[in-house]
């Protein structure tokens, strides 16, 4: 699963490149060439030309709203100041205490906030 370049990825990239150019040329042809010319060629089943202007406008407004929406979602999912999620969570509540061994590095655990506060703010000696 490394992001290194592979021959298959080069082929996918080139196919996407050609496809997007083709799609863009098709969009330009549909938007600019008058309908009568297209009808004379026999191509009659196109969407209304109104959409050639409407779709980019919709897309730009969506991108703008997306910025504001992401900001708002972030603010909404931040835990409020009075919730216990700022102190602890399920994993910390159910953790098991390992026995203290001499000469060994203590096991990793979540230190309760009372202990942390005492260490930081109450210098005894």
């Amino acid at each position, binding site marked *: 699963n490394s992001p290194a370049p592979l021959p298959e990825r080069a082929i996918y990239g080139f196919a996407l490149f050609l496809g997007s150019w083709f799609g863009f040329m098709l969009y330009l042809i549909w938007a600019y060439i008058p309908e009568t010319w297209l009808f004379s060629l026999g191509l009659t089943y196109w969407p209304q030309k109104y959409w050639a202007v409407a779709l980019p406008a919709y897309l730009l407004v969506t991108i703008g709203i997306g910025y504001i929406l992401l900001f708002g979602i972030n603010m909404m999912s*931040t835990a409020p*100041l009075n919730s*216990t999620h*700022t102190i602890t969570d399920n994993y910390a*509540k159910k953790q098991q205490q390992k026995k203290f061994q001499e000469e060994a590095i203590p096991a990793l655990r979540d230190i309760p906030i*009372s202990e942390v*506060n005492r260490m930081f*703010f*109450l210098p005894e000696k």
Partner: protein
Amino acid sequence: EERRYRSASGAPIALWRRQHSASCRELTVRCSRLQLRSLSAVTSAVWLTAYGLYVISENSMVLSAAIFIMLIGLIIYLHFVKVDQESLLVIGSLGIQVTSSYASGRESTTFIEMGQVKDVVINEAIHMQKVIYYLCILLQDPGDPQGIYEVVPLFQSSKPRLDCLIEVYKSCQEILEQRKTAPQSS
């Protein structure tokens, strides 16, 4: 007994400490009063806008509506929003009382009994695109001393900075430590 500090947004606040007895302490944080210059700035902005609308629309109701809105807004702000002082009264074996007094004289009080208080800690959390330190009371269920049942944040309106919070924390811890030793001695 009074010390000057700053709140999280830079406004000057004052901390008053009073010791009523060996196991009872009262800590009060006083915010600055409503400033005359900010009040006159808001009043003149609203009234000048209303006058501008009146000149455009020739409707005198705009002026009376502006006066009315200012008065009602000011009364609501003083009564419900602007906090004058917040105080914390810690009584050793009884409980903790939290009082907020508003600019209009209203006081709202909450009492938490000592059996429910697990600890008073300084916690840090994200609040409105900032990380702030705030003092909070951790409540426990009397039947389950290990679990934290609820968190009650203190000094919400004045939001003191860490130096002021450390002073309050030390004072509270001195009293809370007594309840660990007291049951053994008596």
